[in-house]
């Protein structure tokens, strides 16, 4: 194994890691927004909103993320959606992970005992107040860990945008193989950096989870 090459070349990979982190952060934010909207739709009083929410989840989860990305990036211009590769990556992955986050959030909310809502409503709180003050604070605590699982999958999923030429960790590895002819070292380098990002994120999630856990 060529350690010298790895030491020489890793600063370029650090720059690529920054792009992967940016992608991950933006995708997480968009995913949480989509997840919240999807959850609101799926738990709505109105059947048509529930139908839209259910369709969103099943379409996204029923097709490969790569196809969704290609559809958006390559197919988009055909229907008037012009995005650069990074934008398409964030939007494609964000909307994708949002469907999974919808299920996570909804699961945490419906896991809260119905008696909680009943007690709140009995005191005179409105549906919204009961949700806001009683159900949500408990559900948020419950959903941190499973959302962490979604975020873990999302970080690894950002590798897909290499296929639409976003210069992140995976694409950078592929690019340097062209000049170094050392695929093992190159993929090892990006793999290690993914591991660092995921490890740190995981620690952060655990910390958050411990901090808000109900005793």
């Amino acid at each position, binding site marked *: 194994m060529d350690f010298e090459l790895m030491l020489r070349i890793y600063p370029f990979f650090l720059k690529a890691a920054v792009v992967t982190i940016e992608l991950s952060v933006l995708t997480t934010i968009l995913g949480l927004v989509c997840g919240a909207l999807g959850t609101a739709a799926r738990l709505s009083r109105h059947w048509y909103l529930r139908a839209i929410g259910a369709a969103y989840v099943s379409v996204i989860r029923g097709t490969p993320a790569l196809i969704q990305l290609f559809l958006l990036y390559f197919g988009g211009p055909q229907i008037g959606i012009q995005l650069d590769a990074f934008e398409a990556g964030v939007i494609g992955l964000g909307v994708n992970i949002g469907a999974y986050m919808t299920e996570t959030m909804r699961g945490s909310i419906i896991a809260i005992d119905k*008696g909680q809502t009943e*007690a709140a*409503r*009995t*005191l005179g*709180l409105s549906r919204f*107040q009961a949700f806001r*003050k009683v159900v949500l604070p408990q559900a948020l605590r419950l959903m941190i860990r499973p959302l962490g699982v979604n975020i873990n999958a999302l970080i690894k999923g950002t590798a897909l945008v290499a296929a639409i030429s976003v210069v992140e960790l995976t694409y950078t590895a592929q690019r340097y193989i062209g000049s170094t002819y050392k695929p093992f070292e190159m993929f090892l380098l990006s793999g290690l950096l993914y591991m660092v990002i995921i490890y740190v994120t995981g620690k952060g999630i655990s910390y958050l989870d411990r901090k808000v856990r109900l*005793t």
Partner: protein
Amino acid sequence: MSDTQNFVEIRNARKSYGYIEVLKDISLNVERGQIVAIIGPSGSGKSTLLRAINDLDPLTGGEVWLDGVQVNKTLPHRQYEKHINQMREHVGMVFQHFNLFPHLTVRENVTMAPRLLKGISKEEADQLAEEQLRHVGLLDRIDYYPSRLSGGQKQRCAIARALAMKPKLMLFDEATSALDPELVEEVNLVMKKLAEEHMTMIIVTHEMDFAASVCDRVLFMDQGYVVEEGPPEVVFKNPKEERTRAFLRKHLGANK
């Protein structure tokens, strides 16, 4: 409507789940300050009837009136929500499984609704919490989380939470059924105290002794009907209906 009569009035209440009718034409009047016990076998519709009073389980037929206002009147959705929220402020409810809010302290459990719905200040809220918790003997646990309370303490906290809204009517659905036997008495004492303060109460219970000692009237329900109703000394000592006798034999067997 006069001040003393028909404070709570249930007229021809019916409730079905699909084809199954669980309340079959029930009428009930409760005067202000009265305490009514509802007894009967499991599945007879006691909870459903109680929960119809604050519209937690809406009736499929009939009317519920509270203090001259119809609880389950027909209104467009939004207006109905507003109306029902207002009605519920006046009706406290205590559940078998307490349903305390685990993410809030005892103090916050008690003050959340009044702060949110009556806009009282933090100082007023603290005062209210202290007053209510002293009333149920839980002042020393004011900053505990529910997970650190015993069952009896949890139920007393739940009662304080309901009382903090200053309700005109209290509903109890087997408030002591989930408690260890040695913790039942402390909750019963709080309920007796409320009785002495002339709180209007409707109490679903399996404790015949307690019902006999605090209630003005007892309703025996079976299979969605009120089979028998009257003062406790009549219903417990001299029931007219065979079904009541059979039920009481099972539940009072030892003492009779």
